[in-house]
């Protein structure tokens, strides 16, 4: 979503030359004495932006500043607050429980990003050949379902799938793996990966379709030429598919990394951060610190750290994958 931040903000279309006048109201009789152009007064333009800016300022920028401000105080949300400088930040980086939430967020990236993107790439490049078949069109609808339903519903459905009598264990016993069945979300060692699987399920379809859309833009002649030169599916993938998909891969990675770092809904519903703190993530910790522990300062410091982390991950991805040909 920060693509534009690095993209040139310059309007490529400003220089568009050929006049497209077919949709215009009749201008026949008069010929423009001077180019009236878009010489709108400065104030009119700002008036058009004003309502959007007002809402954005009031409900995003103002709270954003307050998050920074609160992070420098110790405050229980009711009584008087005490200035503590950067103490809340040092707590975030030294308190093992708080630090662990950040570690968990990064572990979730492996599930939320790596699995959907890699699996999506493999799927998309295999499906490529039947991308226009009726089966693929039906799949487009089905695979999109996880994007449409609330994450809360995905959390509930998967908590049930992963429970001790759930489908996952049923399948495992069926194929003779009785030994490893368990309540996946209740076990200290498997709870975080189990949460990760839910995220992977939600994001796999989106990534696959995005990548498939990218692949279908590649000139089929390239593949034919590769085939004639004796390339197999793997070399095709490495030499044709991958390089052409840089932008789409960048989008998938960006969207999924943000989903992983800022995860809240899925964890809140499926594990509440437990067992113990095994699945506690920054988003949920902020919520608990602010509204149950009444440590508004700590919650805000963690929120600032989270926002910085998101930017620190997203900006390099955008920079690496942006389309340099433009």
């Amino acid at each position, binding site marked *: 979503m920060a693509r*534009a931040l690095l993209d040139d903000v310059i309007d490529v279309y400003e220089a568009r030359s050929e006049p497209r006048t077919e949709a215009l*109201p009749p201008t026949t009789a008069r010929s423009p004495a001077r180019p*009236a152009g878009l010489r709108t007064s400065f104030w009119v333009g700002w008036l058009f932006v004003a309502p959007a800016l007002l*809402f954005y300022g009031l409900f995003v920028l103002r709270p954003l500043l307050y998050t920074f401000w609160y992070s420098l105080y110790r405050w229980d949300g009711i009584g008087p607050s005490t200035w503590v400088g950067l103490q809340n930040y040092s707590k975030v980086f030294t308190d093992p429980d708080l630090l662990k939430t950040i570690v968990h967020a990064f572990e979730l990236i492996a599930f939320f990003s790596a699995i959907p993107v890699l699996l999506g790439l493999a799927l998309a490049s295999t499906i490529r050949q039947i991308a226009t078949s009726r089966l693929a069109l039906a799949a487009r609808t089905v695979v999109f379902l996880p994007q449409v339903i*609330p994450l809360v519903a995905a959390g509930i459905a998967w908590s049930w799938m992963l429970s001790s009598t759930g489908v996952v264990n049923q399948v495992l016993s069926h194929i003779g793996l009785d030994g490893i069945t368990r309540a996946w979300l209740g076990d200290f060692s498997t709870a975080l990966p189990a949460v990760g699987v839910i995220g992977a399920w939600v994001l796999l379809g989106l990534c696959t379709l995005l990548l498939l859309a990218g692949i279908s833009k590649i000139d089929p002649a390239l593949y034919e030429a590769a085939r004639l030169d004796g390339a197999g599916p793997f070399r095709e993938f490495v030499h044709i598919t991958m390089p052409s998909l840089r932008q789409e891969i960048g989008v998938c990675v960006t969207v999924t990394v943000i989903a992983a770092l800022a995860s809240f809904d899925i964890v809140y519903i499926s594990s509440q951060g437990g067992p113990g703190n095994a699945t506690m993530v920054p988003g949920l910790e902020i919520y608990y610190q602010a509204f149950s522990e009444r440590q508004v300062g700590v919650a*805000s410091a963690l929120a600032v750290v989270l926002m910085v982390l998101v930017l620190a991950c997203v900006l390099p991805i955008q920079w690496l994958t942006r389309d340099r040909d433009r």
Partner: protein
Amino acid sequence: MIVARREIWTARTLLVLLMAITVLPFVSLFTTALHQSGTYPLGLDWPSEPHWGNFADAFRAAHMGELLKSSLLIVAGVVPASLLIATMAGFAIGHLRMTGSRLLFLVFVIGLTLPFEGVVTPLYYQVRELGLLNTRWAIILPLIGLFMPFSVFWMRAHFVNMPDELSEAARVDGANTWQLFWRIHVPLATPAISSLAILLFLWTWNQFLLAIVLVDDPTKRTMAGALGAFQGQWGTDIPLLCAGSLLILTPTLVVFLIFQRRFVSALLQGSLKG
């Protein structure tokens, strides 16, 4: 193109597998919802006598009627207002390009990656000061603001592509800026606006964090927020919980199936532009 048969069959198998994995959790919800309420059935098990009545029970327990009304009110508060002010801003930044519009655009873009958790704590106190806590306004007003970065970004991307000649001609005919916007540019922007409408509808309907933080009463929340409360209340009665979840899912599913083409392309474009 010469394609080996084997590859096509691999592709088909994988595609079917992907669909199966996507649908499996829904199927499990459905079969479980048909079991005797209060029991703890297997994940995938068709009951000997399906209890269709569970859906009616869940409908009452979840106050579905009120929930639908509440979610619709919130959507009605968020989506049209966001569309109008974002289109105006996108028009000014992308098309009028007055002095300072690039800086303005950057200010909006800063908000694109912002996780809602980053501002939710101050929002709580701010909404409380405004005396709006536990009302639907507590969700509506902040959401309009939080959707602005993406919406303005999206509409600007449309208006940047509109040729200047169009506006010049209208100007010559004596249109003022508002007429230019409302009579000429808004009608031409309908496709971009309707895709944005779909995305905003979905994001509002599924909004969870703001709903649970800012509104205590589940019947004044969004659908997703209400589902969270439903889980808290009925979490131990698995069949009822599954039936309730399916009911709460149904409205989005119906809307999705009706507008699926538009949905898929809006969501794909939405993430590509974003």
